[in-house]
């Protein structure tokens, strides 16, 4: 028998549904004309650099089919890099190369692919296979994050990233997504990655969830999520809030990674951030979004919004992390 929750319960818990997100938050707060900046990762990068927001280094852009033949020369001397579609969505089409051996490339999962496979993947990106609406696209090659070793134990074969939902410039909810063996090194929760809810006030973990159930330890590395405390949390919040100002979107998700040398960096922005963050935090978004609305109305200043958010959204640690 499939167990369902009643809509009344979900409403009481303040869970945001897909329709509510689309109409009330995305439709009402994100003007269409500002999507371009977010959906196009090259534009995001340029805008971020202009505002001196840290981003991974861009190695090159491939915008024509004929450039694919010469792409290996372009990558001469680079052994770790990421190829992604400029207008991709939902993490589709991102190829992570962690090491190379001549013309053989090693993916984050350890699988070895040939230069031929690399070219085919790039060609697919240009044809728009992974892109919104299937239109023609460009491929961008950027530096692989050398991620902070403090977080290494929380991720298996992939870069852990931090998603912060920002509503009208107020950071509302955050989670860290940790790749697992089942998620094939990808940080997508529906593919089996672990989502760790993060306290907005402190950067400490609140709860960890894999495939909808609470977990305490990483299934592959065995690391305990309870002791997770994100470094540079202040900078992360500041960066996320700046992204809201930069993009002109009222409701967005900022994906941030922690680099060993350069600290928090903006990976990409998302105008339609998913709902799984509620499961990772074991809390609904709706109540927080209402409070954020009031904060945004009363505090026009960037720092004041972050301060008020930390005050209002503090969650005492430890309550939810033990399985019931």
């Amino acid at each position, binding site marked *: 028998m*499939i*167990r*369902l*929750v*009643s*809509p009344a*319960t*979900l*409403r009481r*818990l303040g*869970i945001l*549904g*897909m*329709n*509510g997100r689309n*109409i*009330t938050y995305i439709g*009402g707060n994100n003007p269409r004309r500002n999507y371009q900046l977010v959906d196009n990762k090259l534009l995001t990068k340029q805008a971020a650099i202009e505002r001196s927001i840290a981003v991974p280094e861009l190695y090159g852009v491939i915008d024509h*089919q004929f450039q694919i033949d010469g792409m290996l020369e372009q990558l001469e001397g680079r052994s770790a890099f990421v190829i992604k579609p400029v207008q991709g969505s939902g993490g*589709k*089409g991102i190829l992570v190369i962690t090491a190379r051996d001549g013309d053989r490339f090693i993916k984050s999962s350890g699988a070895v692919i040939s230069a*031929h496979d690399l*070219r*085919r993947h790039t*060609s*697919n990106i240009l*044809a*728009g*296979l992974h892109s919104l609406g299937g239109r023609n696209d460009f491929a961008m090659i950027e530096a692989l994050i050398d991620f902070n070793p403090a977080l290494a134990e929380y991720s298996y074969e992939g870069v852990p990233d931090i998603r912060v939902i920002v509503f009208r410039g107020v950071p509302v909810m955050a989670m860290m997504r940790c790749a697992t063996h089942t998620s094939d090194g990808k940080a997508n929760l529906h*593919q089996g990655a672990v989502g760790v809810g993060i306290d907005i006030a402190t950067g400490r973990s609140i*709860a960890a969830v894999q495939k*909808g*159930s*609470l977990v305490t330890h990483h299934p592959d590395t065995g690391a305990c999520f309870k002791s997770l405390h994100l470094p540079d949390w202040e900078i992360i919040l500041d960066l996320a809030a700046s992204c809201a100002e930069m993009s002109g979107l009222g409701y967005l998700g900022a994906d941030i990674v922690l680099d060993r040398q350069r600290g928090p960096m903006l990976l990409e922005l998302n105008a339609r951030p998913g*709902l799984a963050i*509620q*499961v990772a935090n*074991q*809390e*609904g978004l709706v109540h927080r979004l209402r409070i954020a609305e009031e904060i945004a109305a009363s505090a026009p200043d960037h720092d004041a919004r972050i301060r008020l958010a930390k005050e209002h959204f503090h969650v005492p640690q430890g*309550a*939810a992390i033990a399985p*019931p």
Partner: protein
Amino acid sequence: MIASRTKVGLVAGALILFGLGLTAYKVISLDLPLWPGESREVWTIESKISFKPTDGPVEVELQMPQALGGWVLLEEHFASSGFGFSVLEQPSGKIARWSRQTLEYPTTLYYKIQGYRAHQDDLPDLPVTESAPPLLEPDQDAAMERLVADLRERSSGALTFTSLLIQALTQPEPGQDAEFLLGTYRQTPVQVMLDVLAYAGIPAHTVRGIRLQDGRRRQTLSALLEVHDGEDWQLFDPETGASGLPDDFFIWQRGDGAVLRVMGGRDSRLEFALLSNSLPAKTVVSMEQRSDDFALLNFSIYALPVEQQGIFKGILLLPVAAFVVVLMRILVGIRTSGTFMPILIALAFLQTTLWVGLGIFLTLVSVGLWIRSWLSYLNLLLVARVSAVVIVVILLMAALALVSYKLGVDQALTVTFFPTVILAWTIERMSILWEEEGGREVLMQGGGSLLVAVLAYLVMSISVVEHLTFNFPELLVSLLGVILLVGKYTGYRLSELYRFRNMVNMK
């Protein structure tokens, strides 16, 4: 935000009320039944006369059908722009005549009738006229004599004679004399039969008419044989030998003589487009009473030409299918591969029937996926690869049709109704999905699409739905209103009640 909600609410409310109001008006004032009750099979027959003009004045005469065998004609309509037009009463029936002084371009004239068979009547009596024996070459005459003598020997009267004659002339290997006659006559077998009957002194003539097939576009006249056995006239089908008036035969002209005469033109052709509608009995009766100016007929789909009516029959069902997709995606939250792909699949199911359709779809997609996995080694550009898949799908369809036809499974021939390009894209998307997210996601989305397609098919094949959309197209305005409302639904999807089920345990 609130303002936009109210606006949508008002617009949607107005649309819903408008559609329902118009429907109520039609039901109450015009007496159109809301539910498909007892119905009549009303046929719309559109005759198309096309010809190329030669020099001089043009005159076209078309013998108009008499309503025989219990048929009732509800409406007649002529299209004759630029032509003088008149209807002549003649002893043999009414004749429509179009005339014009000069004409330069190939032209098409239309004559449309609507009718239904109210009773299964016999044909009225007709005076017997002796037909003159045919003029024949000596060798034909000898063959005819032998054939008639042989048939007389084996028959007991005019009727068995005719049956045996039809059998003798239509069997795959006719006898020597029959074969000789068929070979030397430069006419149809029916003409040979008429001459044999005349030679034997049996009164006979042809009855020309149309074989009624729903949706046929270019039907031509066919003929029956009518033979007098001394007491009554009896009809025979010259192809099968069956006696009596076939149910699907609409009599156009009884007796010999031309149906169409074109003077001042050449290459003239007479073709018929046919469409059958199941109309409520009450409507048919009121159409019969006021067949000249029937308001309902003039302001409904029925006023359109036959071909368009047939197309609209299908098109008017599309919004219902779209509504199913809207409900399944917004209220239930089923993921499908491609937003409206399920509708196209459901339309194909309407033609193929459900189980055959499902079988064909699954076969095509799974074989397509298998071949596509091989294509992915070739490292092709996307557009070329999808085009290659399109061709593969077409070849698969041809192979499926051929193999099943040879095996005697005719149903699989309906494979042609599947939208090729959509299938190719489905295969392409699923194959990418497989590579990126694994087989489970493919099953989820593929299964979701199929489920929605089957539901849309089931809804579209409800006879009430077809009746309502075709007879009350204004209900689609109401449907539009409902869809606008659903588009503003901010509540939870059914799938979310499952997705967030574990959240209840929190804090």
